[in-house]
């Protein structure tokens, strides 16, 4: 297994200046300055984590992350509309506090975690991951999160549990896109249990060292970097351990175009477009798409012996 040496400078430190300036506001807030205190109460929780300077993860890529602006203004989050700019415009209505996640199904003990408790299950790590969208574009994003395995360990999955189902928020009052029938709500995603337990799979709660903005799936979302972006469900409310492969939203929408596995694979084209290359946001020339989005060394063994053209 190839493990890259961690960067000497954490990517969170090569943040665009504007974001840095906003961080200082965070510190002020944490210090008890009245200014801005009411604006982002949750940031106090994370400001402490931020100051604790999470250790760089060996799983992080050394590639240059996309700007905070790119990551937070070009999103697919159909609960807020189908245009890339919709989530940034409309997601402010989502109430992310209080928020809790129930973990249930084939487990020894079902549990419900308040978000503030959940983030204490393991030290938050910065993970700079490539993100490849099924539409043919990609970004590099410095997430902040914890391994999903740390959460699953808490409920002790039973031997009969083979898959994990992720059910996300679908509140028509705060999520205007839910009133459209473009997908079957709530948005459901799923992983095989071994995929869910893989150390690359994280629950992200932050971005660029800050609390996750609503449009990126606040307060917590999946990040499965070797799969197309839609596999990483946003604003998760329920996690179920199940025996059978979950019926995910995109498979229900179009099983021929979107498979359950949806591993990034340049050799398996989308029926309507090629997946051989991708446009990294911010770049002019396209790049070749890598098998498993460049994480083959870590995850290819999960699919040993499987026909990836059949299990796309």
């Amino acid at each position: 297994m190839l493990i890259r040496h961690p960067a000497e400078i954490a990517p969170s430190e090569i943040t665009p200046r504007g974001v840095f300036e906003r961080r200082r506001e965070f510190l002020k807030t944490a210090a008890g300055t009245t200014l801005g205190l009411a604006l982002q109460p949750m940031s106090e929780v994370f400001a402490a984590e931020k100051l604790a300077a999470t250790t760089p993860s060996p799983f992080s890529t050394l590639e240059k992350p996309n700007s905070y602006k790119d990551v937070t203004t070009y999103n697919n989050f159909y609960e807020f509309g189908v245009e890339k700019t919709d989530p940034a415009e409309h997601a402010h209505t989502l109430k992310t506090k209080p928020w809790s996640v129930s973990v249930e199904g084939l487990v020894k003990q079902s549990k419900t975690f308040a978000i503030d408790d959940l983030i204490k299950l393991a030290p938050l790590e910065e993970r700079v991951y490539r993100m490849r969208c099924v539409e043919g574009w990609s970004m590099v994003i410095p997430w902040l999160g914890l391994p999903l395995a740390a959460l699953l360990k808490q409920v002790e999955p039973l031997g009969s549990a083979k898959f994990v189902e992720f059910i996300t928020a679908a509140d028509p009052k705060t999520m205007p896109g839910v009133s459209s029938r473009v997908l079957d709500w709530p948005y459901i995603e799923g992983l095989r249990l071994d995929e869910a337990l893989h150390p690359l799979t994280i629950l992200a709660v932050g971005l660029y060292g800050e609390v996750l903005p609503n449009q990126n799936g606040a307060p917590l979302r999946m990040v499965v970097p070797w799969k197309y972006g839609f596999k990483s469900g946003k604003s998760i409310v329920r996690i179920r351990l199940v025996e059978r492969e979950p019926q995910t939203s995109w498979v229900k929408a179009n099983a021929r175009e979107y498979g359950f596995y949806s591993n990034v694979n340049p050799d398996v084209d989308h029926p309507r477009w090629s997946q051989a290359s991708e446009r990294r946001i911010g770049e002019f020339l396209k790049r070749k798409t890598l098998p498993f989005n460049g994480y083959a060394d870590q995850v290819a063994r999960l699919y040993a012996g499987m026909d990836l053209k059949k299990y796309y």
Partner: protein
Amino acid sequence: MGWHVVFNPTQRQLSALKTALFIACLIPLARLGWGLWYDQLGANPIEFITRSLGTWTLKFLLITLTVSPLRKLTGWHWLLRLRRMLGLFAFFHVVLHLTAYLWLDQFFDWQAILKDILKRPFITIGMSAFVLLVPLAATSNQAMIRRIGGKRWQQLHRSIYVIAIFGVVHYWWLVKKDVTLPALYAVLLVVLLGVRALWREQERRRQLAVGAPMTQGRGKITAPQ
């Protein structure tokens, strides 16, 4: 014949109108240029440019197809004098759209482009629409009309109906899931083609009723729509 319509309002007024329309037709492109210069096209400007040029091609096609029904409804025969410019603006935008795809999107990777054209139905149909549009643009001048003759020119230019259908299908097939916008273009196109079919049918029946003994009229080419 449509292009022989006598223009009643003054020539000067028509010229002014044409100039104003010409400038108005450049606004979408100007806005795109402005947005590019001031970095207002979002995180993926290449996609934005390609999509915008594509949808403006469709808009110009639909506007061009609106001229003739509008003329029939209003009796403003001079509208026809603006149609060529609108059609050529549709062609202008599709050339830019195709250029954006070949250059910005694929960067002249001819192998990938050829694969796209052969394997991706939405690109196959889009490219077909472009190819079919080329002869229309090439014959959009008085000299060519004279050279090939009015009737044949008219028959040739009826392919605009197929081109518009191809264009909308091209859009429909490329969207990931939400077909609201392509559906909107499709509805407009159905209306524009529907009124033509309706009027043609009415005209045929009228001719049959009037000249029952001379039924050969049925096969005659009707007035340009």
